[in-house]
């Protein structure tokens, strides 16, 4: 591995202005690093700031504090010209395959325009590249002459992936790329992303609300809640031995597709308080109001990020006690059970 990661997000803070009030911190003090050929999953519920992090990396949302570096070079607030050059290595796939393709442009035009900012290859070269990338994502090269409304959601998402990959980027940000797809198509797209990664040596920043999907595709996972990192570490460890109460709540809330196991799981599920206060003190644990283990210190102080023996960073005042709780740590094997 090289000395610096491919993408490193360092103590990033992103704020949105709110009328007559202090700005809303969508992302607060988030640090993420992605190495070459690595997939880092970003998981959290709505309002956790996962999409905002993607926007900041892509330059759509300005960073209020912290830095974003690509391949060792600081790109926080990079100028348009730098962004244009950056787009040769950094691309994006969005969630909604319907809104992400311009309905009035053919697939060929949509794909080839991505090549425009990077030199001007001849028409036949462009056509060749379009055809080869379409074939690679599993579509007929004849698709280039057709319009987006002739394709299903899954096919559109393949086209969106083709658009991102035609410039041979090094990092692709996948913002909920399979969330709006049906189960069978979701599996097809996940497999495609995997095989493209092996073949082209890609890195992914993979954003999803579905921990099972993130677990499947990622090597490392970052769990976000209200703009802060709750837990970050190797995917298997985070999934099988959640160190943070929030991660555990997420895992236990997702029903397992097995009636008997799910019935057993239901009885052990922790309840969290449903009615939430809209604001939480910035200098406290953001999860404290919903956390069944919260004590005074959780509501008064922001927990420090600590490293567990399994290589997981966890931001919880009580993670050591929590790990010792029955069902709270290593012996909790719910999701690993098979049919």
């Amino acid at each position, binding site marked *: 591995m090289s000395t610096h990661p491919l993408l490193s997000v360092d103590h990033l803070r992103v704020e949105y202005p709110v009328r007559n009030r202090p700005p809303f911190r969508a992302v607060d003090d988030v640090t993420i690093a992605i190495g070459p050929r690595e997939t880092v999953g970003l998981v959290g519920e709505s309002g956790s700031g996962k999409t905002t992090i993607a926007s900041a990396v892509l330059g759509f949302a300005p960073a209020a504090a912290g830095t974003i570096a690509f391949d060792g070079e600081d790109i926080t607030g990079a100028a348009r010209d730098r962004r244009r050059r950056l787009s040769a290595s950094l691309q994006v796939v969005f969630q909604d395959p319907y809104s992400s393709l311009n309905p009035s442009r053919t697939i060929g035009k949509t794909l080839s325009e991505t090549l425009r900012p990077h030199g001007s290859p001849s028409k036949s070269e462009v056509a060749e590249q379009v055809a080869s990338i379409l074939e690679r994502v599993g579509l007929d090269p004849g698709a280039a002459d057709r319009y987006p409304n002739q394709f299903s959601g899954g096919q559109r998402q393949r086209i969106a992936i083709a658009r991102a990959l035609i410039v041979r980027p090094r990092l692709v940000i996948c913002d909920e790329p399979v969330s*709006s797809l049906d189960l069978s198509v979701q599996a097809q797209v996940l497999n495609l992303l995997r095989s493209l990664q092996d073949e082209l040596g890609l890195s992914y920043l993979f954003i999803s609300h579905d921990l*099972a999907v993130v677990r499947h595709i990622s090597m490392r996972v970052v769990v976000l809640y209200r703009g802060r990192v709750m837990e970050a570490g190797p995917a298997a460890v985070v999934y099988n031995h959640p160190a943070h109460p929030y991660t555990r709540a997420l895992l236990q809330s*997702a029903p397992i597709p097995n009636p008997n196991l799910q019935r057993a799981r239901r009885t052990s599920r922790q309840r969290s308080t449903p009615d939430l206060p809209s604001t939480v003190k910035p200098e406290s644990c953001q999860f404290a109001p919903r956390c069944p283990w919260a004590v005074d210190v959780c509501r008064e102080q922001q927990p420090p990020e600590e490293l567990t023996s399994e290589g997981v960073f966890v931001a919880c005042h009580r993670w050591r006690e929590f790990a010792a709780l029955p069902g709270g740590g290593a012996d909790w094997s719910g999701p690993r059970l098979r049919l």
Partner: protein
Amino acid sequence: MSTSVPVVDRGAKPSGGNPRFFRRLLRRPVAIVCCAYLAVLVGVAIVAPIAMPSVNSQNAGDLFGANQLPSWSHLLGTDTLGRDVLSRLLVGDRVTLVGVVEALVVVLVLAVPLGLAAGYLGGWTDRVVTWLADLTFSLPAVVIIIVVLSVFPTSMLAGMATFGVIAAPGLMRVVRSATLPIREELYIKAAEASGLSRTYILTRHILPRIAGVVIVQASLLAAVALGVQTGLAFLKLLVADPAPSWGGMVADGTSVLLLHPWLIIPPGATIAVTMLALSLLGDAVRDAAVESWSAPVRTKRAAAKAAPASAGTTPPAGALLTVQHLSVSFPGREQDVRVVEDVSFDVAAGEIVGIVGESGCGKSVTAAAIVGLLPGSGRIDGGSIWFGGKDLARASEAELRKVRGRTIAFVSQEPMVSLDPAYRVGFQIEEALRRHRGLSRAAARDRALELLRDMHFVDPGAVARRYPHELSGGMAQRVAIARALAGEPELLIADEPTTALDVTVQAEILELIRELQMTRQMAVLVVTHDWGVVADLCDRVVVMYAGQIVERSDVQSIFDTPLHPYTEGLLASNPHLEPEAATLPMIPGTVPPPGSWPAGCRFSARCRYAVAACAELEVAIEAPYQGHETRCIRYGQLIKA
């Protein structure tokens, strides 16, 4: 996703590109007539001044033959100075059209780039442009044009350019507001992330999308410009005598209005017809532009009663809800398209039944058909829906209204959409209570609070006072369920009730539904694509594929031994079950859209067990085990595997 009108003609739909747009436009007779008329005007404007060069400088004609009515020598008569009206009308066409074109060019050149820039760039550009537009709006238009024309007497260019500048802010605002939503589209973000320049994005991505709006507005503006132009010519401000103009001819006629009223008719009628042609063309353009995506007008359940009496006419005993051989169609481009075919299942009292499948399989349409809420102009064209001794497939709208909300409640995927944003949520629940249960105002208020407490709200009073937009998604769904329960229903139909919610919130809602089913002995029919929800909630499952039921079973057997390859494939492709595997087992291909279902087994083309026989004959549903049915001739292979 699931509540939307099924796209019945996805495969057959032509693309929405520009060439198709003009073909669509020219399918309209009105558009053809208008275009032909305007083309004639353009032709005349080019030819007439060349063919009749003397008309422009003709000061007077036959003074003894002035003010004549139409005759063979003067087809439209003569004017006050004895000149031929027809030739003046034809020659005056050019100056009129030139004026309109000048005004239009100025409007478009100013308004389109400024509107695009203001809408797309936002920020300071937007503020400055909008401020300038507001300033222009406050100017007295007529006064300014007259002042300009007093500086540049009889200058058509100066007059119409001034009009163009004054009219531009209107179009600018239209362009700006059309650009705003497009700016938020993901394909614009994707183009920006690809490093494409702003000019490129504006001209290649945004401009084509707003072209329709601009064309409509331009044709309307042309009509207005024509009116202004003839008005100014009428005042002799634009065209110097003796050159003819339509407005000037009206002025000429007005001077002898009482003696020779005919004189104003030829120019007046021409002006009116031209303005009409421009406006009608604008309408036709708009209609053609929206034709591809506007939904057909909903026809009420008129056709429902035409359902053939194929099923029995007596209610079956036992189950609370019995759906028999239900078929649903939507009108397609050429013929009706079947979306649901021959679906039969039942729901016993207090039972939770799940309908599972992917989008386009007909599960949401089935649920909507039961309560007579089919989207668009969908209709039930076969089968019966027995509930409470009545066949809902043949029930009138009035009968359905009695059932809906009272004995059958419906909860949709989008809780926010189902609540009226203008009323407090407490009031909305009270309203349902008073309508369905006939409670007094005070009793309804108490009962509403009780219902909200049942939904596990900590402070029901505070929630009741809120408006829907003050609720989170999960809270809104709990309020929607509370309102659905107002009529104390025997059956709750929930269409993807947790799909739009976060997973921790989903767990709360599922828990709530299960609790309600247990405490109230309420039956639930839940439509979902999520096997986890099925495992958590359901007693029995119905799996749908391409409009048909392919498997019916109790919940445990379907997870343990799926008997249809589609069920097996769907279960296996869930990443929940294969966290370690490098590749997920997957079903190749996609669900065929309604209207292009293959012959024989509809899944055969994607099935790994398929043999030649599968694609030949329609497969009937059979029951290898008690209570476990499948529509597959090769289910034996699944049991072995």
